[in-house]
């Protein structure tokens, strides 16, 4: 019997071990650290399948939750970190260029080790059932991201992104702490299930103060998941950060935010009066996020920035699911959508890295004629874009299908209507990339693009997974509670 905490402990140990190893690996290629991290995390991923969700251990505390949802998102965090490291290996020459140092490759080691600590934070977030725990885990994630976003200290864009992320992250942390304080003040509890027990007894006059506190917490989570109107940091940070970090930020950080959102909302939704208000707020957030994310994505010419806006747009679809969370279909829809989002976003970023390296830029025009230069990469990008747009036979379609199904079953026609129109917008901007790859002629140099073997393997697996789970989602749906 493996204790459920073992996964996080293993991940932290891997991180510490790699940090020490970094000190001794002076001459070797630092990328061996990434390989070590990938192997270690893959081992933990395998280990997680020997763990049973919902074991009684630690249950009494309510501090650390070990249900199927938590386990699913731990695997999610591990998988996304592994993919981030694969991308980071491919991206490391760019990082090297932007780190001025006396010895070559000095200072590169942490770039491969920090994601491991982020992963530990994400896993704790998945399991946290207490505001204190949520706060600590969130800070572990956020602080490790501060460093990673500003990692390329020779690049102004990266520094700017880091500063913006630091300031706005600190602001959202402030909101979170303040909100937790109010909730604690009103209920005397920080543990979510105790709060639920207390809420039933609470006099109705006190609800305003409680809602105020909850509102502040939601603002903080809104920052994490990039919901409008808390999205303004996203485009700049995503564009400036090193690409693997952007991918990690846009997938894992967002997913963890949604887990927290689901966990925090759960006790409050049980009071009918609060439920109506909360769901209305979620409907407004979802509609605003959908409209802003999709409309703002349309004029973008930089692919990374486009993906940043598209990540806002996808937060909108996920919020549609959250706004209908009273439907029994919604929880599963959100989780499946996040899983699909992981596959297609990482695929897009993994293709972006080698292409941007070869073409010297991340503009959509750098993809011109990729269909002729590297048909394989272009096809993978086509798959990613088709799935992001929501074409059938891909996970992206199935995710949207489940989300809309949940929304329709709750008769939330406003969101469905907005969703349909924004999906059509999505077709426009995702197909701009496809158009560049297949319809436009290549620029002058048309040599085939070099891709690292590990990246190539990941790209192949992700492309295949998008189709396989798009047609046959049962294995994933079975893992989701």
């Amino acid at each position, binding site marked *: 019997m493996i204790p459920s905490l073992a996964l996080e402990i293993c991940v932290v140990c891997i991180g510490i071990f790699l940090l020490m190893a970094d000190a001794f690996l002076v001459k070797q290629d630092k990328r061996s650290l990434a390989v070590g991290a990938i192997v270690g995390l893959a081992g933990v991923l395998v280990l997680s399948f020997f763990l049973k969700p919902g074991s009684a251990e630690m249950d009494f505390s309510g501090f650390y939750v070990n249900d199927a949802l938590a386990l699913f998102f731990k695997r999610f965090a591990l998988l996304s970190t592994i993919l981030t490291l694969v991308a980071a290996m491919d991206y490391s020459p760019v990082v090297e260029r932007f780190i001025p140092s006396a010895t070559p490759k000095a200072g590169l080691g942490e770039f491969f080790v920090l994601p491991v600590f982020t992963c530990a934070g994400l896993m704790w977030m998945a399991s946290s059932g207490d505001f204190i725990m949520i706060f600590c885990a969130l800070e572990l994630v956020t602080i490790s991201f501060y460093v990673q976003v500003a990692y390329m200290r020779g690049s102004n864009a990266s520094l700017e992104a880091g500063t913006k992320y630091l300031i706005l992250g600190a602001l959202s942390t402030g909101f979170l702490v303040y909100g937790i304080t109010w909730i604690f003040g009103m209920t005397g509890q920080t543990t979510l299930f105790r709060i639920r027990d207390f809420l039933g007894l609470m006099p109705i006059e006190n609800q305003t103060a409680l809602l105020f506190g909850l509102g502040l917490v939601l603002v903080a989570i809104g920052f994490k998941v990039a919901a409008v109107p808390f999205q303004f940091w996203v485009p700049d940070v995503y564009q400036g950060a090193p690409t693997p970090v952007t991918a990690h930020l846009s997938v894992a950080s967002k997913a963890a935010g949604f887990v927290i959102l689901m966990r925090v909302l759960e006790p409050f939704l049980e009071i009918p009066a609060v439920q109506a208000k909360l769901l209305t707020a979620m409907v407004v957030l979802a509609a605003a996020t959908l409209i802003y994310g999709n409309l703002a994505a349309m004029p973008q010419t930089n692919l990374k920035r486009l993906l940043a806006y598209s990540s806002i747009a996808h937060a909108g679809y996920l919020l549609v699911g959250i706004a209908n969370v009273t439907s029994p279909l919604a929880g599963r829809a959100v989780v499946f959508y996040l899983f699909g989002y992981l596959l297609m976003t990482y695929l897009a970023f993994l293709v972006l890295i080698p292409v941007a390296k070869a073409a010297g830029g991340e503009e959509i025009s750098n993809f011109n004629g990729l269909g002729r230069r590297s048909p394989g990469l272009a096809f993978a990008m086509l798959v990613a874009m088709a799935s992001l747009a929501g074409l059938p036979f891909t996970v992206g379609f199935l995710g949207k299908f489940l989300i809309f*199904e949940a929304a329709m079953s709750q008769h939330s026609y406003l969101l469905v209507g907005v969703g349909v129109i924004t999906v059509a917008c999505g077709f426009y901007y995702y*197909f701009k990339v496809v158009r560049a790859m297949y*319809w436009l002629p290549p620029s002058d140099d048309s040599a085939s693009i070099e891709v690292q073997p590990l990246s190539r393997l990941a790209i192949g697996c992700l492309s295949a997974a998008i189709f396989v789970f798009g047609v046959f989602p049962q294995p994933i749906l079975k893992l989701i509670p």
Partner: protein
Amino acid sequence: MSPLLFLILVPLVAAAFIVVGSNARFTALIASLTNLLFSLVLLAVYPRGSGYQFVSEFPIVPSLGINFTLGADGLSLVMLLLSTLVTVAAVAVAKAPERNAGWFFASLLFISAGVIGAFSSIDLFFFYMFHELALVPTFLLIGIWGSGDRQAAAWKATIYLALGSFVLLLGLLGLYLIQPEGFRSFDLRKIILLADAGFLGGNSWVYLLLLVGYGILVSLFPFHTWAPQAYSSAPSPAAMLHAGVLKKFGLYGLIRTAVPIFPDAVAEFSNLLLILLVGNILFVGYVTISQRKLDWMLGYSSVMHMGYIFLGIAALNLLSVTGSSLMLFAHGLSIAALFALGGELRERTGTLDFSELGGLAKAMPAFALLFGFAAFASIGLPGFVNFAGELLIFFGAFAGGTPLFGFSHGREVFALNSFQIATACAVWGVVISAIYMLRAYRRIFFGPLADRWSRLTEIHGLPRAAIATLIVVMLAFGFFPQIIVNLLTSGLTAP
């Protein structure tokens, strides 16, 4: 393996072979001929009037009632025959582009696999998915290998059809969610059983979603503006497959879902549909007359003819719905033949502008003959299967609705109801088609032959055989429409 799965897989496997590097044109031709023969065999062995046959089921998401269920009845088999026949013709007339010929033929085969999958799906989820599978290569074909302002055309069609598809998806979701909990499924047979038992009544909003969704896909007035532009830009095999087969998906879907499941809603909103379809026939008809280029004219005419099929569906009796189903087949063949000929002409002359053409019958008599046959078929001249379809629709539609003549409140009344007025407009539509088709024919093939056109090469070889086959099939079923009608009526549930 289910025979229908085989039909879907043949083009997919062939496409894979082509991408890997086998001879594109030859492989595509072999695959499409195999499919044609196989669908003929299926038609021959299909026991008449026995509902869905060749059924195979594979559970995908049991908790949601999604299964990969294939099966075919008379109507599906006729549509499968149309799909395979037009695929053969499209591959036969396709000219390999200089670059990426493999991908070009692979895209054609993908469209073919998509439509075959859609027409042989009983599960509505996969019915929808296969249709989308066919749309993607259509866009690529228009955008990469099209002519004229191809990117704008592909772009517009993409956005329009994506929107239509999502509205349709919502309609299908609605259809799923109005089923009582515990019985929900996407299986058409089960849904129709529930509808017959009266569980699904009173949900006309689902019908409206389906109508708008399918309507956008079929270019129902006023959602038709994407179609002429896309068809005029598309390479001719893509236009043949889309206008001939893929666009029929929406009408087939209405006949499959709306008619048996929501007969009350169809009747309730029949006036709305009648107004829209008269818009298709008269408004788009007059727009068609004013076209100055053959490709645009054909594009508009294909939009216009959708009006007849909608009329048959709106009238909601066995006669008219049978007529609509027959017309799906007939129009698919005639428009495919016309687009094929238009493509051949464009390739020879480089222009399809009526003002620059003239007298071509002297240079290419066989071409002119084929075009004449196809044009007459499209008008609906007796002897072609189109005539049989239109006639059934007109008779059925004229009998639709409540008759307004006879005695009412003790007085004799004589008036036309809305169906009869719409039928009268539709009959006028035949005159409109005759005007534009014959004018186009006169301008292209009669009159003085310009010097620069005197050395045009005659149509010959594979394209000639393919187009002639389409015309022969139209003539054959025009004289013996009963063969298809017998197949169809078994698949239609009489409301």
